[in-house]
């Protein structure tokens, strides 16, 4: 399972850096790809799900692991 998830490491980057990294990944990879964004920025943990909803993709999970927020997103279109 783990090897099918693409990690987008946006740690140490501030809003909208992690989101822009995710967008870059979504543009490059095929439909169905699952991304996991790592962000040390709490703002992104709120902002990325909102972008995912508006952009029509699927938010799989949004968890906190120590200081890192991990947001899993599936590309739907």
């Amino acid at each position: 399972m783990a090897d099918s998830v693409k990690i987008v490491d946006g740690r140490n980057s501030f809003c909208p850096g992690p989101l822009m990294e995710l967008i870059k990944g979504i543009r490059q990879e095929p439909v169905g790809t699952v991304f996991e964004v790592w962000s040390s920025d709490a703002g992104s943990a709120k902002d990325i799900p909102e972008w995912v909803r508006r952009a029509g993709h699927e938010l799989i999970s949004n968890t906190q692991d120590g200081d890192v927020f991990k947001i899993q997103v599936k590309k739907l279109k």
Partner: protein
Amino acid sequence: MPNPQAINMMLLSNDYAKIQAVAMLTAVGSSYGKSIKIFVSMEALPAFHKDAAIASTIAKGPVARKIVESGGATSFLDLFRQGKELGDVKVYACSMVMDLYHWSLDDMVDIFDDTLGVAAFLGMVEGETTFPM
């Protein structure tokens, strides 16, 4: 015809915070498929000159300094470039300021689509949401 999804901005201030905010809105808005037109005029335009001595006249308040010191923020130029890459973003340099300083688009960073007067910009954005910044 006015586009209800459009976001247009008149960037007039040399305040780093406002320029960064417009760049962030541009990058994220463009990723949603929003059409964005930006008119850069008055004190904001020098911030986009290729000559660093001219561009550095930009003003930074405490938050802006913190953003720069953090090293984690994407520069406003890169955010504008990303916005243009993602979708329909047009950036126009005010022809009045360009004329005042005898600058051409070759003197400016590579984000501009054209020079434009205020009448032409108002014509383009008629009936659409436009924010002065």
